[in-house]
């Protein structure tokens, strides 16, 4: 049984069919990549799993640890152990890095400070330079992205979805982010990386290939990546997906 199971999930937004009968299993302790070109439906699928506003009216079922979660609110899903890192994280006013990164740490935890400092270090940020700064527009896009990941590392839930964790991140920091993700795996965390970057895909064990709101193929990452590179990138939604052909090619 997968940690997360999505069964026949469909979603219409304003009459448009955006997720089409998505079924997938996410395996405990593994890193997964949700792969597809722009507009494939990757962020939408993650938003539906998290239960975000505008993405809740789905048909089909979502199970987490064997329990239905598709009727739950965002915070209830988070309390079950799911979280999500935005492609473009929100900016706040007056909320410090310390308070933001610490937001998801349980109140029973008595060493909050150490957890926050450790999470910042894992994404390559010196706690002393950032703790008292506000999570606002004075932070660069890349810094904001790293703080988002730090807040997730500090929360430490069993399942994490990261939407384009590499976007806006410079080359040197990419390695750090990759290390942080490796460390998550070592901790036993299950990760879903949403991406169209080959470098990020290579960190994954398994991959789901998405096109036009459908899952075209599920396989090991090393089988999906070359197919994506040779077929999806040049095609870029020009042709309708041909599931049979893709499956044959990948196998």
């Amino acid at each position, binding site marked *: 049984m997968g940690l997360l199971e999505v069964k026949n999930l469909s979603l219409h937004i304003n009459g448009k069919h955006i997720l089409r009968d998505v079924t997938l299993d996410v395996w405990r302790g593994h890193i997964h990549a949700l792969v597809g070109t722009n507009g494939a439906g990757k962020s939408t699928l993650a938003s539906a799993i998290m239960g975000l506003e505008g993405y809740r009216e789905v048909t089909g079922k979502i199970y987490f640890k064997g329990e239905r979660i598709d009727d739950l609110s965002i915070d209830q899903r988070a309390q079950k152990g799911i979280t999500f890192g935005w492609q473009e994280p929100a900016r706040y*006013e007056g909320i410090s890095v310390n308070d933001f990164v610490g937001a998801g740490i349980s109140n029973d935890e008595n060493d909050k400070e150490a957890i926050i400092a450790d999470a910042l270090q894992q994404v390559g940020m010196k706690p002393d330079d950032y703790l008292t700064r506000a999570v606002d527009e004075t932070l660069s896009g890349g810094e904001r992205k790293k703080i988002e990941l730090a807040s997730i590392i500090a929360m430490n839930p069993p399942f994490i979805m990261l939407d384009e964790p590499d976007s806006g991140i410079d080359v040197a920091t990419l390695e750090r982010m990759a290390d942080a993700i490796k460390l998550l795996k070592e901790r036993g965390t299950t990760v879903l990386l949403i991406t169209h970057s080959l470098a990020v895909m290579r960190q994954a064990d398994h991959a789901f290939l998405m096109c036009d709101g459908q899952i075209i193929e599920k396989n090991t990452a090393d089988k999906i990546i070359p197919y994506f590179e040779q077929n999806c990138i040049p095609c870029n939604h020009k042709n309708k997906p041909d599931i049979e052909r893709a499956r044959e090619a990948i196998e």
Partner: protein
Amino acid sequence: MSADQRLASEITGSAGIESDMFKRKDIAHLLIHHDNVVGMHAVDGLEIKTKKIKDGVKIDLRLKEGTTVKNPVQMCFGMMPKKGLQHIVLNAVIEKDAHINILAHCTFPNAIDVKHVMDAELTLEENASYKYYERHVHSDKGGVQVIPKAKIHVGKHARYITDFELLKGRVGLIDIDYETTCEEKSTLEMNARINATHEDKVKIREIGHLNGAHSRGVLLSRVAVRDQAEAEVYSELTASAPYARGHVDCKEIVQDDGIVSAIPIVKVNHPKAHITHEASLGSVDSKQLQTLMARGLSEDDATDLIIQGLLK
């Protein structure tokens, strides 16, 4: 302890100020209870004259040319009784090249029907700076009316910053009315952060005239309203000289049955002047809220954290 000393320690205590502050020779202070000056100390270059008026005190404050007052001047205006009026008339002149920070604590911890009226006139001469942080401590009963009015003249190269914050207790009624005129290369910053609940009413009227070339002005307001509270923010900023730049920034968050309105008026009378204006009214930002909820915070806790940040 004399009666005055007792009142002084009562008002400063309720405002949460450390009493040691008033023993120090290098920190100026002025403590007023109702119409009574219960403590006063000035530092070099700072002249404070007070005069009793009906239900209040008239203050003449003058900072001599070239003086920099190192430590923030501690002012405390308070009323311990449940009812009454306190009227403060403040005339301040900050002479050329003089610099001062004032921390004004206004405390009405037992108020059931207390009115605090402030009429201020401020002149900042060339290259002077004046920072005025006003912190309020009110009762939880909502029986306070705070009515501050100020006319401010900011001279060439001078810098005026004011910050109004309600730290504790209920608003009751707050009716702020500030009007500022700015000369060449001067700076104006007006900030108000208020949290209104129950039947509180907040009215903010802030006006800035950027009359001098290269003058700058920011009018910023942050108001959170819940229950049946109401808030109205009127901001008017005019730029009438080359390279005058201004920004009006108003955020009002509403919950429950609260009502908010914002009336921004921005005027530009010179082709080389520039003013921007930003207002957002209503619920908290949904992406901010959903991010915090995705970390496991309930909707209420996430909303509180966002509002606390906004009012910080």
